[in-house]
């Protein structure tokens, strides 16, 4: 079985970006380049820690810190790798992107410039809080970490400080805090009811709760599950708790959108998976409910994405839809289902971050983001176009891209369980997604600009650091599609570590 090994990496992985964030905020006032360099160092440090932890965890070790307060098993390491791995290209992209003053009109541009040290401070802190949430083993601290991600990212969402950004920031902070309060209630109830059966043990430790889940009074367990779904589900963008998501993901600066859509909602899904699966063995009907929730989410997100003109809102609704697949896969509760759900989580993090960065590159070049204004950019921005289409094909599940592999795994898991309705909804939503993204790609890159404000001659390909970041993510989408075995060792272990996996 797993061997617990104390390791400082469990603390370093979130201390490094947190410290880098603090320094970026302080030193960035002296020179902007300090803030940029520190943000990059912070996320690179976290990635190095994650990379150092991975082989040890794959050998069957469970890394712990501060007693058992921090605990990194294969599922945690998957998330830590994902957060820092997506964070790295997003940060690289941010450096050049945030320097671009043409994105805003005169006044706001000056204000934005002055606030850049704060931006990188919060940005690194945001990454640190997400990483902390994935390594903590304390059910109350899990809530604290998830709420901390909201606090750290609230001002990032409202960063441009114009009417739309402020509105999105208000909704984001308010709705997420109300939602997450339900998760706090659930955490406290779970802790309190489990404590009675765990004398002499710290009942806040998630790793201990598993053993007593079946002893918790049935009525209390139902409340706990419902409150967790409302709480972490709000954060994960699950319908009908998603209304904050399109606003926040669309109005935030593009690199922040890539983090919100690529990583943050995944971290909430992780929290949901960690807590809900505690109850799987004793409450079998729960799995059907979670699958239904996933189906509803993916369908609603897909239909809403179809109605968008704003590219970033379109991508945001598509994120709601893709989270449905993750939830559905985890909902099946079988090995294949959970494997598919986690694979989709990995794939979507890379693909959606890639799409947000590609659209960011379009905004960088044109200052526009409506399909009804853009057009013909393919000739002037071929690299961005190729990256966008790789991301687009990946999320619509075309072979040989990553989304094909993850979706087919989820569909096979559904077929195995005989849940054909779920499989049908999944395939239908895939077609919807394909229509949505192809239509968007066609509107941006083919034809001629529809707005008189842009002339193609004045448009240039995105600068090197922007497209390097995009190309890195595009390579991940291709690799996971052509050689999905690359992710097998870690996904296999992570799947096995999720409680309640019922059988092969």
């Amino acid at each position: 079985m797993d061997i617990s090994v104390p390791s400082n990496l469990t603390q370093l992985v979130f201390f490094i970006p947190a410290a880098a964030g603090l320094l970026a905020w302080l030193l960035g006032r002296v020179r902007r380049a300090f803030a940029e360099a520190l943000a990059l160092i912070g996320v690179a440090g976290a990635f190095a820690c994650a990379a150092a932890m991975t082989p040890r965890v794959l050998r069957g070790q469970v890394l712990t810190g501060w007693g058992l307060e921090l605990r990194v098993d294969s599922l945690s390491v998957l998330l830590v790798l994902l957060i820092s791995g997506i964070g790295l290209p997003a940060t690289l992209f941010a450096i050049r992107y945030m320097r671009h003053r043409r994105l805003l009109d005169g006044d706001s541009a000056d204000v934005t410039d002055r606030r850049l040290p704060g931006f990188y401070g919060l940005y690194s802190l945001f990454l640190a809080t997400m990483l902390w949430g994935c390594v903590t083993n304390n059910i109350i601290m899990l809530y604290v970490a998830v709420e901390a991600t909201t606090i750290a990212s609230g001002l990032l969402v409202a960063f441009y400080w114009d009417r739309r950004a402020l509105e999105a920031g208000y909704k984001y902070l308010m709705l997420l805090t109300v939602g997450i309060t339900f998760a706090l209630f659930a955490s406290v109830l779970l802790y309190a009811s489990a404590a009675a059966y765990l004398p002499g043990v710290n009942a806040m430790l998630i790793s201990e709760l598993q053993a007593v889940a079946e002893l918790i009074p049935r009525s209390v367990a139902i409340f706990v599950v419902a409150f967790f779904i409302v709480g972490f589900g709000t954060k994960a963008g699950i319908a009908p708790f998603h209304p904050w998501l399109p606003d926040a993901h669309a109005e935030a600066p593009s690199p922040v959108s890539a983090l919100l859509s690529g990583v943050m909602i995944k971290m909430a899904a992780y929290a949901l998976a960690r807590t809900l699966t505690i109850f799987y063995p004793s409450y079998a009907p729960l799995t059907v409910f979670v699958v239904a929730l996933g189906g509803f989410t993916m369908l609603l997100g897909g239909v809403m994405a179809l109605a968008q003109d704003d590219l970033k809102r379109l991508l945001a609704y598509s994120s709601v839809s893709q989270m449905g697949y993750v939830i559905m896969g985890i909902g099946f509760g079988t090995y294949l289902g959970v494997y598919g759900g986690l694979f989709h989580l990995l794939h979507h993090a890379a693909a959606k971050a890639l799409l947000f960065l590609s659209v960011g590159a379009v905004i960088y070049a044109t200052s526009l983001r409506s399909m009804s204004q853009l057009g013909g950019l393919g000739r002037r921005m071929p690299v961005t176009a190729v990256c966008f289409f790789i991301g687009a094909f990946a999320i619509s599940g075309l072979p040989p891209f990553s989304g094909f592999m993850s979706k087919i795994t989820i569909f096979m898991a559904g077929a195995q369980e005989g849940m054909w309705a779920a499989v049908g909804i999944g395939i239908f939503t895939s077609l919807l997604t394909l229509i949505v993204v192809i239509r968007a790609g066609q509107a941006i890159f083919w034809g001629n600009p529809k707005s008189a404000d842009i002339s193609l001659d004045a448009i240039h390909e995105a600068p090197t650091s922007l497209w390097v970041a995009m190309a890195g993510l595009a390579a991940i989408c291709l690799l996971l599609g052509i050689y999905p075995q690359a992710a097998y060792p870690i996904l296999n272990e992570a799947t096995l570590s999720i409680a309640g996996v019922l059988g092969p």
Partner: protein
Amino acid sequence: MPYNVGLIETLSMLMIITSVAAVESYNLKRAAAAYALQALLICGLILAFAAGNPALYIWALVALVTKAILTPWFILRYIARTGEREVPAIVGFGPSVAIASVLLISFYKFTHTYVHVLAPTPEAAAGVFRTNLAVALTVFVLGLYAILSRRDAIKTVIGLCLLENAVHLSLVSLAPDMRETALIGIATEVVVTVYLLLYVIAGIREKVGTTDTYELAELHW
């Protein structure tokens, strides 16, 4: 039983009254004052429970600093800049008080009767803890009602504070032996969230000229 049942019940009823005052008062300053009073009542309640569990003294201190001092200070500082008059709510004063009263009485009765459904341990469903849990849940529902029915952004923040107060209070019944670090984590985050919300709302007021959340309709679908 070491608890002063009469005191706990009196404080609990006063808590509900102050919640209604915080939600229904048109004058934002008075609403904030009602909220501060409620926070003091929470401290009193936790102290009353501390007679049976000395660990709770530190909880009362945490509540005093974060809920009775910092949060009202932030809200009052904000109101001083923007004016005291609330943007009228969706429902008028009379109907709103009626709705709130019906909500309070029926919900309190309901939770008090069926508290065992939610109580994690038999002790939490008995005596003073039962009252505590029922009051907490009632204040929680009132907070949700305030967030949903008020148009003024500051009022929604006060609603959010009520919600968080309710959770804090319920911990006395649900998890009295929780560690201070966790408690401080929870309480600090609420204060920071309130501060950030007020900061963003101040920005909205500057750019849009109002704190009416119904004016925030730039983003939909």
